[in-house]
């Protein structure tokens, strides 16, 4: 077996099985019995508020699914929220604009918008030109979107996906255009700028949880319980490991040191 299966990745496999079982278990449990109340994500409520505001003011809605291709999970998370926003725009009847900086993202975004408009019962309102390709260069993309936002003055701007240094260019221009801005990214280094410049922000993991909150199958919220299991596991390992380390250092007990060693082996990444 040694020459086929890489046994040094046993802890990765164990974690993978644990988390997969937790996520699947959560969904099955949610299918069998109703879920209790869950934490409200303020930024998700802001989606409808912002689109409603755009409808009232008769100004467009801008949705930017990040500046990376669909080989980044954040872009897929952003696109899953586009389905919700497009559905709202269809229902409220406002003009939706989705500028993208990758052709594959443009293509996928069009599929999503067409389906969202059909699901909202207004397939005729969908136009392919709602979703446009600007350029693969992130700063040319930001320059173009900034110009468009300042000229067309959207009332709602959504920045949901992978962002890099250009995040503040987009957020500041959105603020200049007077838009209510909901942002979300898992690129941690851009969070300080988005938290400072935008009205509501989905911080890191919340961007991924959002699609489970909003999915048409309510059982999918059960997957968030499975995700939380991972966090409780992390808390247990963090505190348990640290206490074991402290115990073995202070008391020198052999059993604590071996347990501490076991925790480290469980976490070592080879």
């Amino acid at each position, binding site marked *: 077996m040694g020459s*086929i299966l890489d046994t040094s990745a046993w802890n990765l496999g164990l974690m993978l099985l644990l*988390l997969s079982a937790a996520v699947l278990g959560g969904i099955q449990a949610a299918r069998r019995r109703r879920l209790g109340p869950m934490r409200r994500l303020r930024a998700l409520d802001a989606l409808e508020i912002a689109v409603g505001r755009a409808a009232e003011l008769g100004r467009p809605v801008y949705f930017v699914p990040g500046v990376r291709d669909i080989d980044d999970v954040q872009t897929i998370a952003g696109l899953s929220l586009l389905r919700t926003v497009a559905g709202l725009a269809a229902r409220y009847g406002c003009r939706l604009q989705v500028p993208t900086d990758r052709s594959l993202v443009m*293509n996928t975004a069009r599929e999503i918008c067409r389906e969202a408009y059909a699901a909202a019962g207004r397939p005729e309102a969908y136009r392919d030109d709602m979703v446009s*390709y600007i350029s*693969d260069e992130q700063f040319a993309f930001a*320059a173009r979107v900034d110009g468009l936002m300042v000229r067309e003055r959207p009332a709602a701007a959504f920045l949901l996906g992978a962002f890099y240094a250009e995040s503040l260019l987009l957020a500041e221009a959105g603020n200049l255009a007077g838009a209510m801005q909901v942002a979300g990214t898992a690129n941690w280094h851009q969070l300080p700028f988005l938290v400072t*410049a935008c009205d509501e922000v989905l911080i890191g993991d919340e961007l*991924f949880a959002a699609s489970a909150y909003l999915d048409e199958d309510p059982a999918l919220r059960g*997957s968030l319980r499975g995700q939380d299991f*991972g966090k409780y596991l992390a808390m247990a390992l963090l505190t348990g490991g640290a206490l074991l380390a402290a115990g073995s250092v202070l008391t020198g007990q052999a059993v604590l040191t071996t347990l501490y060693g076991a925790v480290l082996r469980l976490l070592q990444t080879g």
Partner: protein
Amino acid sequence: MRRLIPRLILTVVGVVLVLTPFFVRPEAGGRGPLPVFFAYADENFSVWFNVLAVFAFILGGANLLRTHALRVRERGRDWPYSLLTLVAFTAVLVLGLFKVGGPPGLQGSVSHGDSALTWIFDWIYMPLKSTLFALLAFFVASAAYRAFRLRSWEASLLLAAAFVVLIGRTPFGVTLTAWLPNVLRFLRLDELSIWIMKVPNTAGWRSILIGISLGVVAMSLRLILGIEHAVLGGRR
């Protein structure tokens, strides 16, 4: 049937790539078909993605040309600038694809020293890109002015931490609080900003990064198991 095949492709490709770290790589002594297959998948699926993305460029390029050409034909708003985009796009595409200015014919690399593309990159592309990056210094200032207000306890913490670090980065930062006695030395600005970066900053980023990793794991699982409906079309 139209929904089944895409789901199948997604699940099979996802499962194969999830399993790749669990197989010994051939160069590390892995023998037999499985290690070879998984190593091949690990290396080549991302290359295939990049090749696929190049084909998609045709769709993107088509949209770019259509948007701006329509605006020029209908003399829409700002149509002269759309004409500029069309001209610039076509010129750079031709100069680049045929490697004009570089070694004769199609030899040598596309970004050869004397090629027209390199000239355009150095004297048009880079100045525009670095100046847009430089705009961030101004936007950082206006965003800070707008957001760092004693409005709520969260905003006040944001302001306090940014303030200590900002002052700590100026020459006065050290002198401003150097007079504090040694027992209160941790309140000195440079000590305080180092402490903020060592303790709360480390804790904050760790919880965010652990959260993100679980978010990615859960989302990837939902995608591979085909229960993430938004992206590949909902349940019909």
